[in-house]
């Protein structure tokens, strides 16, 4: 597998010099996110996120399995973040790369350890049957900050997902209903954690040089980065800064304020995308609704 292209010294110096003058090559301000597009559907739990040219797709699926022995009344959430040379050219397959480890750890912390999804509600029969929810995250294109895009894709796919309705028919037996028989049910989302990544270039006493949502080139030349995960209640869920330049307290507090305002906008976008997707789905149901569906709607009215 070939090597990934690297930036030349000239390019590096040019980008850095521009940044010193407050100019980013893609014409953004230091605190600007790139344009964000969230495409949900057509299936439940299918989300494609485009952050500038960075593209991530998340697909949620579910199946009935046995629970873990130590957590007999909890469902299971699996995040699969295998990366491929599609987004990371020069990747050596068969060996977990550094990028992959960072992405999967941070997502794991942001979504699983913060209990963003209610797992107890996914229990069907204690010690015997639970739902396993699986999120496959596919990285399609990497133009920097793939982690933030992945977190948006993952949580929006989970919020959009509907699992089939089930009924317990005996001591150990259950019936899984198809979408035509009974309306599928959404997952319980406790809160929506979103990653916001900062890249730091030069930190000195009189001037800090840093940006939010770094693109691929900025990522290549930065001295260090920091990811703050904030949820819709404006709480910090994860703060991850592994090495790189040392930062002052003030910078971190300032960054977290910026992150909070960014997260608000992103969550608004997710909510809008969910509304559009839900409208589409309810239209679909209206068009090919069967008797059962109609009966229900009458009852509700």
């Amino acid at each position, binding site marked *: 597998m070939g090597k990934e292209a690297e930036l030349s010294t000239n390019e590096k110096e040019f980008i850095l010099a521009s940044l010193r003058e407050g100019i980013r090559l893609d014409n953004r301000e230091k605190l600007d996110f790139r344009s964000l597009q969230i495409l949900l559907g057509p299936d439940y739990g299918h989300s494609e996120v485009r952050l500038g040219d960075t593209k991530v797709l998340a697909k949620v699926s579910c*199946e*009935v*399995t*046995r629970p873990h022995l130590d957590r007999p009344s909890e469902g299971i959430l699996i995040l699969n973040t295998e990366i491929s040379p599609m987004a990371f050219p020069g990747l050596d397959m068969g060996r977990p790369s550094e990028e992959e480890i960072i992405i999967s750890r941070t997502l794991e912390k942001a979504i699983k350890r913060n209990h963003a999804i209610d797992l107890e509600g996914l229990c069907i029969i204690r010690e015997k*049957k639970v739902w396993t929810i699986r999120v496959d995250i596919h990285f399609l294109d990497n133009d920097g900050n793939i982690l933030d895009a992945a977190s948006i894709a993952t949580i929006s796919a989970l919020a959009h997902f509907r699992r089939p309705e089930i009924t317990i028919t005996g001591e*150990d*037996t259950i019936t*899984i209903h198809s979408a035509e028989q009974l309306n599928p049910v959404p997952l319980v989302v406790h809160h929506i954690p979103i990653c916001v990544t900062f890249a730091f270039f030069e930190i000195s006493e009189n001037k800090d040089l840093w940006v939010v949502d770094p693109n691929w080139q900025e990522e290549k030349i930065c001295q260090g980065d920091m990811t703050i995960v904030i949820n819709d209640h404006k709480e910090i869920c994860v703060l991850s800064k592994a090495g790189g330049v040392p930062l002052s307290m003030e910078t971190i507090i300032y960054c977290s304020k910026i992150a909070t305002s960014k997260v608000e906008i992103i969550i608004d976008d997710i909510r809008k995308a969910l509304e559009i997707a839900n409208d589409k789905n309810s239209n679909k149901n209206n068009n090919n609704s069967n008797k059962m569906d109609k009966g229900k709607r009458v009852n509700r009215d």
Partner: protein
Amino acid sequence: MSTQTYEAETFRKLQPQEYLRKFLLKEVRPDGRELKQFRQTTVNLGCISTTNGSSLVRIGNTTVVCGIKAEVSVPKQTSTKEGYLVPNVELSPMCSPKFKPGPPSEHAQVLSENINRLLKSASILDLNTLCIHEGSAVWVLYADIVCVNYDGNVFDACVIGLITALSNVKLPKATFAEEEGLVKATEELLIPLNLSRLPYPATFSIFDGQYLLVDPTEVEESVAHEVITIICDEAGQICTVWKVGGISCTPKHLEKCISIARERYIEIAAIVENEEKSNNLI
């Protein structure tokens, strides 16, 4: 410059394609076979006594051993009556230096996958017949197919090995004791599997877009990349057509392959029948 003469072996190593071409011009193959001739095929049934069913297949120098081991397991949550049949092909460094030790190579994985697809799509064995007690216990049959010597056309050997080993399987009569939650099996009553059909394969290579080579050896495989495998059953129906590589295959080639595959079916069925007869005598 003086004309140089090579030993035949040197010529083969330096110019493998040209070497084969020289033979084919004379309508003969490097190992003395005609183009449409299969290598000598033998089948030995029940050669591994520790398994529930086994067979050893030789096609020329290619040798494959298939052993089937039955164990009791818990069925899936979604299909509570179905047992499992798990085929696995192993190509170890023992059979050819081109295979490395470690996890299964792509070649081995593709062989396993195609065998699995054949078993499923032609529903050779009804998995419900492997049920011991619904929801609690089923048979799981591990079909390990090990290549001992690799000299081309290993897929044919694997399929013949698996099918004959399956027809050789005898499972002990098993009952599920509900109070104890245990499976009890008695070796006194052995039941053979009920196979819906017995498909056998035939593999071909197309060389230079014009020569159809039946049952290619390893040397032929390495230069003729266009490979066709046809699997037929006893009624003359087709269970698998698998064709990869090359761009010279036309319906004419396929028709010819199918008719040869049917002749080959009769040949293999006769070999297997003979072996079964002699096995029953002992």
